[in-house]
């Protein structure tokens, strides 16, 4: 599997570390909304098909990125910086 790193280009997946679901928004620092934290930390869908997930290019530029991947076929889609939001 080749992962497009927005900084380094397409690289082998072995250079990356998988880091879970990226579809949930982290509650802002200091938020005391326990339900929101609970949802963010513990509740994940386990979809068959399209998935938005975090990967970190640990053996490359060390940047975190969001990647679209099909969990059934491992077909990889777009990627972007977490700080920039989905390109659409």
């Amino acid at each position: 599997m080749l992962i497009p790193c927005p900084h380094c280009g397409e690289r082998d997946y072995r250079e990356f570390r998988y880091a879970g679901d990226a579809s949930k928004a982290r509650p802002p620092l200091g938020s005391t909304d326990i339900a929101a934290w609970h949802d963010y930390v513990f509740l994940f869908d386990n979809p068959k098909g399209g998935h938005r997930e975090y990967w970190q290019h640990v053996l490359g530029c060390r940047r975190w990125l969001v990647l679209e991947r099909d969990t059934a076929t491992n077909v990889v889609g777009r990627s972007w910086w977490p700080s920039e939001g989905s390109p659409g």
Partner: protein
Amino acid sequence: MSRARRLGQGGYVDRSRPIRFTLDGRSYAGFAGDTLASALLACGVRIIGRSFKYHRPRGFLCAGAEEPNGLFTLGSGARTTPNTPGTMTELTEGLIAACQNGWPSVRFDLMSVLSLAAPIIGAGFYYKTFMGPRRRSWMFYEPFIRRAAGLGRAVHQRDPDRYETRHHHADVLVIGAGPAGISAARAAARTGARVLLCEQDFLVGGSLLGEGAGALEALRTEELAGLATLEVMTRTTAAGLYDSNTVVLVERRDHARPDPARGDAREILKIVQARAIVFATGAIERPLVFAGNDLPGVMLAGAVRCYLHRYAVLLGERIVVATTDDAAWQAATELAAAGAHVTLLDERAEVGGELLRRAAASAATVVLGAQVRAARGRRGVRGVRFVSPQYPSGHELPCDLLCMSGGWSPVLHLTSHTGIKPAYRADLDAFVPGGYAAGHFGAGALTGAASAAAALETGSAAGLRAAQHAGYGREASVPAAAPGVAVAPAAPARPRDAHWGKAFVDFQNDVTTRDVATAYTEGYESVEHLKRYTTLGMGTEQGKTSNVNALRQMAQLRGIDVPAAGTTTFRPPYTPVSIGALAGRNLGQHFRPVRRSPLHDWHLANGATMIEAGPWLRAWYYAWAGADAETAYVEEMRLVRSGVGLSDVSSLGKIDVQGPDAGEFLNRLYVNEFARLPVGKARYGVMLNDDATVLDDGTTARFGETRYFMTTTTAQAAEVMSRLEFLLQTAWTDLRVQVASVTDQWAGMAIAGPRARAALALALPGIDVSDAALPFMGCQEVDFAGVPLRILRLSFSGELAFELYVPSDCGTALWQHLLASAQGLGIRPYGLEALASLRIEKGHVAGLELDHRNTLDDLGLGKMARTSKPFVGRELRGRPELQAPERWSLVGLECQEPAARLRGGAILFAPADPIQGHGRGYITSVTWSTQLNRFIALGLYQGGLAHAGEEVLCAYPLRGELVRAKIVSPVFIDPAGERLRA
């Protein structure tokens, strides 16, 4: 012996280069270009194995990777390799081969008496005989069965050869270098795409090698070398197809006599990442199913043709060719042209006129509507019995070679590996790939193309499409999909009643038509059940020649169509892959990387015994303190408690944190206050996960307005680093902070004990290490002999102690300087065991307690949290479940039995509890305490220190131990911290 002979000319063998080899100790010779199979056949060797269950004599059936019978054990000693098909073994000088599964030899096999016992070892034999109420009999029979059945044996010696793994990237990977693959590769490479063409054989050409008459030469394969972007890999099998266009290839290099001492690899596992893949894997001919179809001398027609043209070996003088389709007619006419007496038996009553005209022009005799009923002979075929309209009650022809052709099965294994189901095509009477994933293209016989011309046409179209998929040659127009290639319909090769003996469906596993019928009768109708009940399609061959014939029989028995009977799932690898190739270089110490401290060599040279701590090798204990860990660590503890010791802590994670917002960043990470940490001070901190379990602890020192130096535990260094990067890059992008791992850049050492300051003063003249200049939790960055030196006054042991950090390349120099300067104070090194024991006495939690399940409160650190400021994990920390008083929390334990010891992992029970189940907690860390003269421990206990003073039972069922201990404070020494503030 057969009447096979090598022809005086032709073929792809080099008659000027004879090659000698041995089989079971006997010498033979072949030519360069031969396989072990072709050389043995040319020498007249016909029996080359005994069958799996019945020990029937067997000869070669095929000429390729699908060979079920002709498996050999190659090599000797530690290089012994079992179960290698002779048809794929390139002949090399001095090759040592041995037949398998024959005792004392394949020609006189005493076990063949099993043939007479056949009725009792049919389908389900093992299950019926040895399972259920009669299971005990397995004990009795097992050694006998294991000896009698089975294939070759592996040796138990260490493999002396070297294996490698390589990664390849290609625009187009073409699998199979027959006519379709070659033309696909050529078409793709001409667009400029980077193309890999892999071929399991040692020659390219595929089926053309067995067609004679310049078939291969017409393809002008020599031109391939001129294509700059094309790489051809021979002797390279595509073993498996995986997600995202990953293909695993295995290259065999035995022909090059690889020498591990020179670094040569014997096999290379190649992991290919391709943008597009062309499957040009060809097709495998199917046997006909009739009694005695396994006799030596009964072979596939295409294989006989291949031996004739590629190896110039004519395998018989009186040859019968039995077929259900057109393909074998070519074999018949060519064998006749080569001088054999040939009779062709076609099951079809009518065939095309062109076939008849060509046959008439040759010397072959043709019988239409002829069905073979049995092959006759004991150690080789001597005749064939068939029925035909002319001989309704049967007729027998003498022969010394029987060629059979029951149609062709496309090699669709690879496309099936990713889950694409095969689809049945009635016109071909065969399964083809049921579809292709995006970027995958089929060509040649795999798609049903029956002629070389059709293979070329489908090949170049597939090659061009693949290149276009990869972004090349977009302007070229791809010829319309090749029209359905016209082939004369084959007569379904139905298995016949085997009144005359065994008719084999699966040669390698000795599965007969009777076994399939038994499976059906007993309800094992599903293909997957059939496979497991009869062992059909198992072994090295995995059903390549047997699958369709078995399906057809089962479909017939059930009265359904072949496709309705299903097909089994093919899984990687296509052909067996050696464990060596899979392991590659990941052996022994190369299994995973080893991390070494900058002081590693010093430790080794100075009596340290090393121990693995995660990926690190650390000094465990030193010889000066004792001959084994048990005695040494106690001595080293005494040294630190009474004098001064020096310990290597370079493995601690070190992170450089810089930026105007670094203080705010740390304040958000750690549960305790960090925003107002002054320059020149360090602070112990704890970080939580979002779910409020403890992530890690460590110390962060502030060396400048915007510069901090964080240390983490050895175990969590990478995790913490990733976490910091995550927060900065995803959540707190407004913070102006940079983090960098500097673990490898700094050597770290701890100097600890009542004489630590005196030792430092001796070693660092001119640097003020007094309590005033360097109070507890103070830090300094100084220049020492031109080298930056960071001194932190911290204590892990509970004694007066300092941590010193210098650039890694100066680590050994500083270490030696410290030991030499403070020699008069009795300074000595101490190792990891003593380091860990000292912290237990002081009640410091470490990796064994920080297991990502415990909260701050569980570890007795709840008071550290500054809840007025936000920090990671603060919110979920308040969950009621985490505040429950009966949670397991940190306690100290003192052994109450002088003769007994505590053990890590022991389960804790209250005195009145029954000793069973998970108890009320467990011991995490144990040491002998030099201060208390008894074993002490840290552990987690239900309700924790609310039970202080109570006795518990420490159960260690692995050793049958039950030891009394008392719950005490986890801080065993100096609770007021007077020593470390001294």
